[in-house]
């Protein structure tokens, strides 16, 4: 991906990507580490701007470390309600019908077939 292409993406998509990187890391990250974790060519200043905006929204917490900050996703009361929502949804087996899920359940045959497809593709 080119530098220009990443910088041109809508702000919402960039925020989502940064947030996803913080959650995926599972540990507080500096702006520089977030930039590396994103695997894209975003400028460091862009990443810092996004992190500051997310911090102002209250979805990202930060702590001072050395000369800069480390950032982490906020998991407080709203996080708890989200968890409750997920368990509520999990109970309903029919939810696939209104909510389009990324992946459906696999049968053992599916699992084997999927591994074969991936291996075949890698060769």
């Amino acid at each position, binding site marked *: 991906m080119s530098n220009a292409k990443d910088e041109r993406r*809508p*702000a*919402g*998509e*960039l*925020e*989502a*990507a*940064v*947030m*996803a*990187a913080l*959650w*995926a890391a*599972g540990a507080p990250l500096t702006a520089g580490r977030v930039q590396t*974790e*994103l*695997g*894209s060519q975003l400028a460091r200043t862009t990443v810092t701007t996004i992190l500051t905006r997310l911090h102002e*929204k*209250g*979805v*990202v917490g930060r702590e001072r470390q050395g000369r800069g900050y480390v950032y982490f*996703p906020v*998991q407080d009361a*709203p*996080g708890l*309600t*989200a*968890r*409750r*929502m*997920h368990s*509520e*949804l*999990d109970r*309903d087996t*029919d*939810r696939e*019908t*209104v*909510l*389009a*899920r*990324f*992946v*459906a*359940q*696999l*049968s*053992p*045959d*599916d*699992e084997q*077939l*999927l*591994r074969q*497809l*991936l291996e075949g*593709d890698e060769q």
Partner: protein
Amino acid sequence: MTALLLVPLFLPFLAPTLARRTLGRLTPVTALWVLTTSAMALASACVAALGALVLTGLLKLPAFAALGELVHPLRTPSDFLVVPAAMAATGVLTLSVWTLARSALGQARVFRTARTQADRYPAAGDLCVIDSPHPDAYALPGRPHRIVVTSAMLRSLGPAEREALFAHERAHNQAGHHYFLAAAELAAHCHPALRTIRATIRLAAERAADEAAATVLGDRRLIATAIARAALAGQASRSTRPDFVPAATTGPVPQRVAALLQPSERCSRATRFTALLLAACAVLSVGAGATGVLAFHHQVEIAQGEESH
């Protein structure tokens, strides 16, 4: 008249095979439209035919005949045929309405819960993360659109694969796939054979979102790997679930991955024609149903003395 009304009740049994063929031969977006429209047409023809049969049976009863201002008895093939048919139709229609109402209420509740909770949670862009050890992700339609993803899902994917997942879910929301899924659900409750079509419509919606994501990111292989990795990660955490029931046929996920690993191909006019058999089947069903209902209406008017034989 009664024979024509039976056509919409039996034609849907041809639909599952035709639906699978349609999805295999058309582009996912076209297939999604053809499948959903056909399913809706087949379902409404079926409901109209059942309704006409129920009314025929009711008008055989003296009380209802008086209520319908019939001056002559309604002319039907034979009471031995019409009365059991009408009773069966009443039973089937009542059952359909009941299961549909139950499913609609349940789904509305699930959707409302998901929506209110996602609205309460401050989102990063359109992303709503749930801290959960189960890898899961879904598109939440409504205003504004949201993508709900668990932390376990984010951890099981690489940066590029996460972008693939987001692109897939955004495609669902932008194309309004939830309307198609709701229509499929509605159709599935009208006729048992349309339940299989519901699964095919779901697969078509996923395929359409996969292809849209592949176009956005310009990499089909990346979408394929992301789907496969997400599915296998989900499998590892789900295998302990006691309610897991293995499916007999190849599930939707390997089909999607296999389709993405193939180069995209343009389909010829001949294969498109074969695929449109489903649409033809739906048109035939609606035609027969409409003719049957009109014939029934004509018979009622004759019985009411409004028209001469």
